[in-house]
């Protein structure tokens, strides 16, 4: 067995990352999940958050995802993300205004459906702000 994980990050629009890495930390639905080579096969949902890619004991790349799925097998780890952006490309100020606008949307929502949608968008925006301001796993 190789001592690397074949990690792939794909969004509907394109393939964002593909390569061999030491470790990946994923924001899974029930808590962060580290994937090392030889991980047990898992399929999990991903909450909005940051994916950290480790190379040689430190984080080499951080990618923000708005949600999605992950499939882990012994050799590979595939993330199907809804949208993904490198953390350094997030505009913190813009993300903050977005979050503020969305929180207004939540309070103004008329129907249950609208509220649920707005809340979902708000959670993503808040996670984005979080990702831009204090990146996890230094």
């Amino acid at each position, binding site marked *: 067995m190789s001592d690397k994980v074949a990690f792939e990050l794909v969004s509907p*629009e394109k393939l964002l990352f593909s390569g061999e890495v030491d470790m990946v930390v994923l924001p899974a639905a029930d808590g962060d999940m580290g994937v090392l080579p030889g991980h047990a096969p898992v399929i999990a949902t991903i909450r909005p958050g940051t994916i950290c890619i480790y190379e040689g004991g430190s984080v080499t790349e951080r990618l923000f995802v708005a949600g999605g799925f992950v499939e882990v097998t012994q050799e590979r780890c595939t993330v199907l993300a809804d949208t993904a952006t490198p953390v350094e490309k997030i505009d913190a100020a813009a993300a903050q205004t977005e979050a503020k606008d969305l929180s207004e949307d939540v309070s103004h929502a008329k129907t249950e459906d609208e509220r649920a949608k707005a809340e979902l968008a708000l959670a993503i925006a808040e996670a984005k702000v979080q990702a831009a301001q204090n990146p996890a796993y230094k």
Partner: protein
Amino acid sequence: MPSLKDLKTRISSVQSTRRITSAMKMVAAAKLKRAQEAAEAARPYAERMERMLGSLAAGVSTDSAPKLLAGTGDDQTHLIVVMSSDRGLCGGFNGSIIRAVKKRIDQLTSQGKTVKLIAIGRKGVSLLRREHRDKLVHGFEELVKPYPAFDQADAVVDKIVTMFEAGEFDVCTLYYNKFISALTQEVTPLQLIPFASATEAEGDEEASDLGGAQYEFEPDEEAILKALLPKNLSVQVFRSMLESFASEQGARMTAMDNATRNAGDMISSLSITYNRARQAMITKELIEIISGAEAL
């Protein structure tokens, strides 16, 4: 015999038509390139989604499976989603897909099934409305604009899922033009509900790859399936949207190329007629002058 002036106006009108068609061809070619790239870029996601869903579906027993995966167990009401273009002037692009859909409708109605239609693209809406107004449930016009995007596919899927949950149909099939090359498109039916794995055999292989190991699920299988199935629908619709868009540009490019060539042919044949007529007129005038001089 048309007069010289008539010929001249005709030539200049065909010339301006040619200018327009050749410009449209160029635009379609540029868009085609982009559309093709987008279609190729979206492929990895769809493939991996299929693989994941395949391995998920293999582990689920049929009776506990959600309806989106297993279907309603009936096939009385069919929903056909038609992917067409918003604009015309693209050869047989819309015609061929509508023809295939109409054939399918006739086939289903003769079997006593109920058919419902959703059309994407203004051309599809107007072509289907003429004959099948009663069956057309919803038409998306000007949806794919300017380029296909994922949220557009989401809007379509929202509609489909809402209808499915309301029990308005049992089987859903999507008809779209699959992009093969700039010259050829192929009308392709794709069954959306219930989920039909195109790579079922491959799924088995995957399972043996894992040495029979079962996946663990987080949070749990049902929740993942519930989230993954609508997502898969969006991905499939998005993918066919991209394919259809690329096909449309290809078809338009070919059609406009033909039109440009035809206009060129027409111009040269009209020019020949024009020159002949001009020469005949000169000869006639000369004869008149000469015979006039001889008479003196």
